């Protein structure tokens, strides 16, 4: 299964890479870029995060939103990978009919002394193969968790206001990292 293959490949690289373990964000972003991102559908993720506001955005705004949201997600969660140390990923048994186009893959992250953390992926079948459109950690969707915040920004400054505030967030994260 795709999720397992990609996860194990990425974790194997992290396990053997001192620079990443020492918190080299750029290196881990590179890795995620090459190995993980091709399997994600960011347009769908952005639409899901926006909820009903998505249709209010013009195609060009949708493109900008997707680009900025992608940058934000990749940066924050790649950083989370650098703190990967002693965890073990367990894949839950999984049955799927060949006709299915939308599935939920369940995994669990085990770490010593803590409760296992549920980590689920929603995937959809597209022409280019299976793509992830949602990641759920301990029941928290990393995508829909943005919905209220996005709605708030749209109410305050419209779609362009939202694009600007995600872009600002990305810029400040990048500036912090350079320090």
């Amino acid at each position, binding site marked *: 299964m795709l999720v397992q293959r990609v996860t194990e490949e990425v974790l194997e690289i992290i396990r053997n890479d001192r620079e990443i373990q020492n918190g080299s964000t750029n290196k881990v972003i590179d890795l995620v870029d090459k190995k993980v991102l091709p399997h994600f559908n960011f347009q769908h993720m952005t639409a*899901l995060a926006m*909820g*009903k506001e998505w249709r209010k955005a013009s195609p060009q705004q949708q493109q900008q939103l997707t680009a900025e949201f992608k940058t*934000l*997600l990749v*940066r*924050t*969660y790649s*950083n*989370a990978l650098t*703190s990967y140390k*002693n965890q073990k990923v367990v894949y839950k048994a999984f049955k799927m009919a060949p006709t299915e186009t939308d599935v939920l893959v369940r995994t669990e992250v085990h770490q*010593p*002394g*803590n*409760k*296992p953390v*549920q980590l689920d992926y929603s995937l959809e079948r597209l022409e280019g193969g299976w793509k992830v459109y949602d990641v759920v950690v*301990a*029941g*928290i*969707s*990393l995508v*829909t*968790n*943005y*919905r*209220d*915040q*996005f709605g*708030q*920004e749209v*109410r305050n400054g419209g779609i362009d206001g939202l694009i600007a*505030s*995600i872009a600002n*967030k990305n810029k400040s*994260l990048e500036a912090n990292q350079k320090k």
Partner: protein
Amino acid sequence: MTKSLGLSGMRKGRAWALGGLLALAGIGNTIAEENPHDPYEGFNRSMFAVHEAIDKYAAKPVAQVYDNAVPLPVKAGVGNFFGNVGELWVGVNSALQGKFSDAGVDLGRLLINSTVGIFGLFDVASELGLERHDEDFGQTMAVWGAGSGGYLFWPVIGSRTVRDTLGWGVDIMGDPVGYVDSIPVRNSLRGLRIVDIRASLLPADKVVEEAALDKYAYIRDAYLQRRRNQIFDGRPPRLDD
């Protein structure tokens, strides 16, 4: 007479204008605070600010020292120990929710880990395939049909809905540490548990800090999603968009 009349007239006028402003502000509020999950947002945001200050200057620095100074096997032992201490109460809640086979597993875990696992320092039961459950009285009330009530944010204990605040009060009564006779031991255990919990949240800090456009809202929505997931034991029905 006229003067006083005039004055009272002016007062009335002012009062009226004030009333109008308040009404407008009220409308403004309902427009700005459209979030049905968070009716007490104003109060919550001020409590959140208090919480952040306490965390920044007390809880987090202590947790960081603990996290850096204590070797992993010891930290794991501490985490397992407190997990085991809470196991009986987890079992009680499993039973109260009618999940009797889960309750049996919880009891089995308690017996195995307290003995073979040396006072709960080692989680032998998990190795044997007895899965750890996540239950508390707030979840029990939810299973019984209680609504969540509005979202609240408390300093130190953090996010809780009205129901889960009540549940938390009952959880404290079900906490064995509260029944330890020696006050210094009891307080040390409580202190160590807080540090252990806070330290386990350290990796999440950075993610939230970086990911959130509005940290308060990010934490609120994450809490509400997580609780829903816990109440449905990891398999919540899908919400339509």
